[in-house]
């Protein structure tokens, strides 16, 4: 097990490195000086050159990359105008936002986490639960309704669902306030009521996908011979489903969950944009649009870390679910 973990961590680090190199080179294709934004207001060629030099933008690309990586691990120094010393992990200074990228991230991460985590709990619970019940009561009205729901749900888009929910719950019936973000530490009730629509939106779509998958896997597992044996032995239904069938059905789902993470990121970005919440996703879109190299790089690295770590968790949990996997 330890060996496997070490191997995977190493592979993950390698992938991260490759991602950082790829992104860094991509972004360097841009014929744009990041300092240009400052120049719009107070431009003098000398000043531009000075800032470029201070930031190291006139150095060869490889050195810039090395400086950047160094900054992540040990921190680096910037001119006073850019905030002086930038402690590790230093992800650079964004001229567009006029702050250190780490500050920007610190501002927006709580928003994104507040959106994703509760939604995740919701959609995993609902999705898998619905899928299992649907499979167990195959053919019943509940099952057929859920199949219809999941098919439509998997084809819906976040903005459409959001629009319908907003129309119904906010604009017409005024049951819920306009979605907004309040820190959970300031006012938990407001935090929940402000975010419940984003949660439901995100969860509705993802749970449909997971419900479909779970149902299909569960049906296949339930038709296996060993389940027939368990039934013949007289085991209670609950025992059969929770102890035997669950494990076999979960393994492929865990795999899909791991692969699906990219889609989760995409979903978060769209949700934030729809509801006007200032989270990581919104920052990313703005940064991409304005070609804010520093912020973009940081977000991509963050995204890659997230996906790699999540895949690692998936692989490890596989070993617990499927005893045939010897790590």
């Amino acid at each position, binding site marked *: 097990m330890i060996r496997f973990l070490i191997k995977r961590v190493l592979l993950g680090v390698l*992938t991260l490195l*490759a*991602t950082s190199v790829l*992104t860094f080179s*991509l*972004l360097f*294709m*841009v*014929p*744009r000086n990041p300092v240009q934004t400052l120049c719009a207001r107070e431009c003098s060629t000398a000043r531009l050159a000075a800032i470029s030099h201070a930031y190291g933008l006139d150095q060869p690309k490889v050195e810039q990359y090395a400086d950047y990586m160094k900054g992540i691990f040990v921190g680096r120094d910037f001119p006073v105008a850019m905030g002086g010393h930038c402690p590790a992990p230093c992800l650079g200074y964004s001229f567009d936002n006029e702050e250190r990228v780490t500050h920007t991230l610190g501002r927006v991460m709580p928003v994104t986490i507040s959106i994703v985590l509760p939604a995740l709990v919701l959609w995993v619970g609902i999705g898998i639960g619905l899928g299992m019940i649907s499979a167990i009561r195959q053919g019943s009205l509940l099952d057929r309704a859920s199949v219809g729901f999941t*098919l*439509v749900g*998997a*084809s*819906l*888009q976040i*903005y*459409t669902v959001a*629009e*319908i929910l*907003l*129309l119904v719950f906010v*604009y017409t019936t005024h049951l819920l306030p306009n979605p907004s973000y309040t820190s959970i530490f300031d006012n938990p009730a407001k935090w929940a009521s402000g975010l419940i629509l984003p949660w439901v939106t995100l969860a509705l779509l993802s749970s449909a996908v997971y419900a479909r998958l779970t149902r299909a896997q569960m049906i296949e597992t339930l038709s296996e011979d060993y389940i027939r044996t368990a039934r013949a032995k007289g085991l209670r239904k609950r025992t059969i489903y929770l102890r035997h069938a669950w494990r076999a059905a979960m393994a492929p789902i865990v795999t899909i969950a791991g*692969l699906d*993470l*990219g*889609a989760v*990121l*995409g979903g978060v*970005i*769209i949700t934030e*944009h*729809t509801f006007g919440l200032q989270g990581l996703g919104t920052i*990313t*879109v703005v940064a*991409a*649009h304005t*070609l804010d190299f520093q912020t*973009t790089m940081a*977000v*991509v690295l963050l*995204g*890659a870390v997230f*996906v*790699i770590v999540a*895949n690692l968790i998936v692989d490890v949990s596989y070993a617990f679910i499927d005893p045939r996997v010897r790590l």
Partner: protein
Amino acid sequence: MIEPLPRSVDAISTDEGPAPSEMVAGRSPGQVAWMRLRRDRTARISAYTLLVLFAIAIFAPLISKVMGIGPNDTFQDATNDIGMPLGYLGGISGRHWLGLEPNSAYDILIQLVYGLRNSLIIAVLAAIISTTIGVVMGIVAGYVGGWVDKSISWLIDFLLVLPFLLFAIVTLPLLESLFFSSRQAIPNAWEMGLIVFIFTVFGWMGTGRLVRGQVVSLREREFIDAARAAGAGPLHIMLRQILPNLWAPILVTFSLSLPGYVTGEAALHFLGIGIGGTAPDFGTMIFNSLGYMQTDPAYTLVPGLVILLLVLAFNMFGDSLRDALDPKSSR
């Protein structure tokens, strides 16, 4: 020359098989699948829906001509001072069947029709190119093996790690700025071409991985040995022996990748990425409509519902296709 052997008692087969005197050609596995598909009701419904939608997209210019309204025509005189369309439910009238867009005063129906058209062009192009790349990479990796396989598999794994939408968001503006300065308006063809390009680069891996897996299991089969024993080279084996056995999974991944590209393109435009051109698109419409939810619900919901219909039809058809092609499913 080999002489024909007289039909002796030994040679005549007495085991079961097709009746000797039938002149009909046999049913290929493809024809079997086609018949199963035809009998499936969901497949029929979704196929007809898709045909209608594709027809609308293809004949968009014709529709535009018949209605007398172009995709860039505005009708400011049918709106009031603050830009809201006059008339019932957002300007619905005999002339404008779905009303007008607030502010810009485009005809919604024509916008939808052209948006559908552009969306499908991008999706179909991206699907064809990415599937082709995936198939080629998959076959080469699966059959040739060795370090070629290792490198391609690593590439697939690496690219799969990168979150699709995130990278599309990041790279599209980048590519745009490479070719055009920020002041220029980007020609529609270029914009669509760039989107197709990015979708292709980040979209071929699923097919590649699937095809590779199939090829690895196929190459151990004895009919491949038979071809090698007859002196067939790798090209013949990959193209003429292995590829014909792959068209089922290829067809399924192709049809299931289409809705992904449709929604991906809508998502990008919704986020404001890649809207340098003036082409109508769903994403922009939906984003603009968010502000008018209470005042102009038709504008809000219609594009979303059209996308829903399109994606739903693709998904249902793809599922039915998969069932029809799967020899194990009991239909």
